[in-house]
């Protein structure tokens, strides 16, 4: 199939999708097309769709693509939907999440060492919200549980993948000149 034929079909699929659509799913629908063709069509669709000044945007999230409204129109959309902003995570939970995201796989004891305070409540919240998952056990005495971020984490924070996070060094602030 020609890329120009494929492109509007992909747009339609992305529109109806609940979750980010990944190339593997598209390949299932177009078994005769190569990944290369599918990805080229996706790229072209995104370039064209996102360059028009519309209210929607196609974004790369959690290894797939998703069509969402543009954030700058949130006030009006919210007024129409009559909703309030959703519950936010506390700073304690976000800090714990940051430690897990950058140090994964990580144990509770290691999180405590970095944050200098108990983190089990925050961790419980993160597990309940499925932003964090158990990824295994560390091969040390006591075999403590190792935690890592989940796919839901990528979706919740609009990340394409973990490599999209800035490096931790970019957050150095007080260090000034390292001596």
């Amino acid at each position, binding site marked *: 199939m020609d890329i120009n034929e494929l492109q509007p079909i992909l747009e339609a699929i992305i529109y109806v999708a609940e979750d980010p659509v990944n190339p593997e799913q598209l390949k299932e629908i177009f078994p005769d097309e190569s990944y290369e063709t599918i990805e080229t069509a996706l790229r072209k669709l995104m370039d064209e769709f996102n360059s028009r000044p519309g209210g929607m945007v196609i974004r790369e999230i959690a290894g797939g693509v998703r069509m969402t409204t543009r954030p700058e129109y*949130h006030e009006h959309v919210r007024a129409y939907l009559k909703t309030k902003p959703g519950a*936010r995570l506390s700073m*304690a939970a*976000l800090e714990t*999440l*940051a430690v897990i995201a950058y140090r994964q796989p990580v144990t509770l004891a290691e999180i405590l060492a970095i*944050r200098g305070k*108990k983190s089990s409540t925050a961790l419980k919240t993160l597990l309940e919200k499925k932003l964090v998952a158990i990824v295994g056990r560390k091969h040390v005495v006591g075999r403590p549980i190792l935690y890592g971020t989940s796919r839901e984490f990528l979706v919740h924070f609009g990340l394409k993948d973990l490599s999209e996070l800035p490096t931790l060094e970019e*957050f150095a*602030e007080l260090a000034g000149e390292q001596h």
Partner: protein
Amino acid sequence: MTTEGVPASETGAGDSLTLTLRLEGFEGPLDLLLHLIKREEIDIWNIPIAQITEQYLQYLQVMKDLNINLAGEWLVMAATLIYIKSRMLLPPDPAGAAQEELVEDPRTELVYQLLEHQKFKNAAQMLYTRQEVENAVWNNPPREVMEEAREVVAVTLFGLLRAFHEIVKRFEERHVLQVDQEEISIEEKIADIRRLLLVRDTILFSSFFTEAPAKQHLIATFLAILELVRLREIWLYQKANFQEIHISKGKPSGETA
């Protein structure tokens, strides 16, 4: 949502009167120290430890006066500060003076801990901002998916055994020689599968077996999959009988929310 306030009830005592105060956003001893360092515009590489210790203890006293249950880590930090202060007061060890380079500044470890903590605080701020943006966008709301659309066949144990048998056969055709085997436990395999399912919702059953170096790995993987099914962490389906088996996260559709 609960915030971990200062009085994380370490003691567990004060039944109803546990005061849950959140002191201006600093929630742990490291946060308080960073706050003091910023407020006083202190060079982090040269912290006036006596001054900081005194201010830290003042805060601690205020919290005690307010009847706030102080978690253990606040007292541990107080002890650390006092220890560093006393080390700074000691005259340098004459034996160590000769090799001056090796005498470590007693503050160093704390400084690195503070710098590390600061980075994660900033990273948390970045996550907060991203969350704000994500809270301001909408995508298609979930719709009722017609059950037919997801029609799949649950895999029977026999189907599974047949598929496994195929895999073992193919493996034996490829590998005649068995090199010394690297031990692998079912637990490790379970962890591997869980890790894979973090990034993907469905995985082909056969893809788990492609890179196994020994037959023992095949068996460990197979048992790990059975265990995860038993724990209801995954389920197996195929589009029709005898077709490729897929592994999917969670419970069969219809049971999921």
